[in-house]
């Protein structure tokens, strides 16, 4: 057994099966779902960290499930980007799990409706662990139909999590989210069907090696891209995101904005990595234009919002744009481009999750999240406000945060390739982010003392986990070489 763990390749499958097991246990132990939930999160975190360590020490690899080689069987693939995403999910996921424990306990303690909060927690843990397993499965999968199954798992569990809050607005948002997700999944599946028709294989690496621009492949790429853009909420398809993310429970908002969006984008990236040399300038530029519009439009909308969680949700719409403006830059330098965008993804994930967690803490303490009425809340919750501000710094791209490193890499790429309009978009996006974040932070940190000074009702773990995540986002500004080394490990 020990020998198996040390020598075998089973590290690849553990981040998928451990949360699945945790989900089943937390569903079964409905009197105490928190214990198996947090335990499952902890174990998954360590399994993911072990996978990363294994990758760095032994290099990447593939794992043939059931011992069947592709094209017959399904394989998992571990390379730098995949394991980095698994690791990012582990870090953010562990913080969110710790937060969620305190969050539900505080809610159960706070008001009279214990039954309702208990029922929410009872559903939260299985859904969240299933979502985690599905995300890990998605990152590691090398089989395009398997990706469809994990996409559906992700979609259904995130819809369930969105609807968990029970507020009328969240139900409507969840319904819309579900319909959009189903449309995206079906579009993806039709694309998979076209690819299978041409290539007779479901293995992404085999398909990528034999890719051409036959009509069927073009249609497949269009269908897959549109389906995944719907799920990632790139600009014209972003309409479902703000209500769904802003009206969910606090840990759920962090999960949706910090992790789920990245999952769909990651698949998009994997598909485009292969075709990018084929499609030429036009398609990549189109993606970048959409991304640029998303950056500006999302920032403008975020500036207009009156509620803190809506502001953070629209800032996600804006940040998604950065994930897509990389594609024209990747044509000249694929490695540097991938490094920049993955650096952006991980720092955004930590920062955004920290901001949503902090906003949720404020909401729970104050009872609302109207920005103009949050004056002076820092006196009550200093750690939380600090976490929010720190996350904001990373979004703006100010040193010494991870966001700064990512944007620096973006800019140096864009300047060296003389794409001045991209430089302008990145700079403008950062300035706009500074404006809307300062607007919120100015209220939170204002010296006036008009906010409620009631007894602190939130658990300490909520404050500390948000702060830890924000600190990780900042720490990413110092460990750049380490992360870049991980990204460059080949599969």
């Amino acid at each position, binding site marked *: 057994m020990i020998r198996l763990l040390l020598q075998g390749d089973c590290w690849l499958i553990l981040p998928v099966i451990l949360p699945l097991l945790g989900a089943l246990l937390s569903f079964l132990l409905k009197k105490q779902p928190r214990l198996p939930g947090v335990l499952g999160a902890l174990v998954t975190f360590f399994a993911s960290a072990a996978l990363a360590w294994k990758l760095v020490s032994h290099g990447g690899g593939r794992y043939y499930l059931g011992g069947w080689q592709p094209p017959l069987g399904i394989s998992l693939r571990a390379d730098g980007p995949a394991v980095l995403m698994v690791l990012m999910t582990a870090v953010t996921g562990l913080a969110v799990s710790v937060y969620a424990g305190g969050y539900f306990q505080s809610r159960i303690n706070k008001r009279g409706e214990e039954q309702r909060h208990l029922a929410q927690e009872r559903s939260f843990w299985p859904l969240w662990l299933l979502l985690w397993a599905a995300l890990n499965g998605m990152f590691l999968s090398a089989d395009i139909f398997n990706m469809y199954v994990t996409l559906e798992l992700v979609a259904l569990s995130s819809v369930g999590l969105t609807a968990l809050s029970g507020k009328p607005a969240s139900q409507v948002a*969840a319904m819309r989210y*579900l319909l959009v997700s189903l449309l995206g999944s079906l579009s993806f*599946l*039709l694309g998979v069907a076209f690819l299978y028709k041409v290539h007779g294989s479901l293995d992404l690496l085999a398909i990528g090696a034999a890719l051409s621009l036959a009509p069927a492949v073009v249609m497949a790429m269009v269908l897959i891209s549109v389906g995944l853009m719907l799920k990632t909420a790139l600009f014209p398809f972003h309409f479902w995101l703000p209500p769904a993310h802003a009206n969910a429970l606090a840990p759920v908002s962090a999960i949706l904005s910090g992790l789920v969006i990245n999952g769909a984008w990651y698949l998009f990236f994997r598909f485009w990595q292969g075709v990018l040399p084929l499609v030429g300038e036009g398609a990549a530029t189109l993606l970048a234009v959409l991304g640029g519009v998303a950056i500006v439009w999302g920032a403008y909308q975020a500036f207009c919002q009156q509620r803190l969680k809506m502001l953070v949700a629209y800032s996600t719409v804006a940040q998604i744009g950065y994930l897509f403006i990389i594609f024209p830059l990747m044509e000249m330098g694929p490695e540097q481009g991938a490094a920049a965008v993955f650096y952006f993804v991980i720092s955004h994930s930590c920062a955004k999750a920290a901001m949503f967690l902090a906003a949720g803490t404020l909401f729970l303490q104050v009872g609302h999240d109207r920005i103009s009425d949050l004056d002076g809340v820092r006196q009550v919750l200093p750690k939380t406000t600090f976490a929010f501000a720190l996350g904001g710094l990373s979004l703006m791209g100010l040193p010494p945060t991870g966001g700064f490193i990512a944007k620096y890499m973006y800019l140096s790429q864009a300047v060296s390739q003389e794409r001045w309009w991209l430089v302008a978009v990145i700079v403008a996006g950062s300035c706009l982010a500074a404006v809307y974040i300062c607007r919120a932070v100015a209220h939170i940190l204002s010296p006036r003392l008009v906010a409620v000074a009631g007894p602190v009702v939130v658990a300490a773990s909520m404050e500390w986990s948000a702060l830890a995540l924000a600190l990780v986002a900042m720490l990413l500004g110092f460990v750049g070489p380490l992360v870049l080394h991980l990204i460059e490990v080949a599969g």
Partner: protein
Amino acid sequence: MIFSPGHVYGLTGLLLFIVGLAGLILCAQLLRKILAVNIMASGVFLFLVTIAHGNGVLIDPVPHAMVLTGIVVSVSSTAVALALAGRVQDMAHCRDLLKKKARGEG
């Protein structure tokens, strides 16, 4: 080019996908949107099975397995969608009642 049954059914599958898409975008009722999604799914499955049919000599079982998986996934998501639609409708109903009550009292 000779039109085989595969082509006819494949085109029908694509057409069903489009019809379902039209229903999803244009219909107003939630229940009908969910029906439309199911029609889209059927279209995709039909297309997949035509791929398996190929030229009718050697049937490829992999798309069949994919469709079987897809059918179970789609029934699961349909159940979720219907439960959620019920909640949305119930909420609208409750809100109407509340409004009526408020109007009656005020």
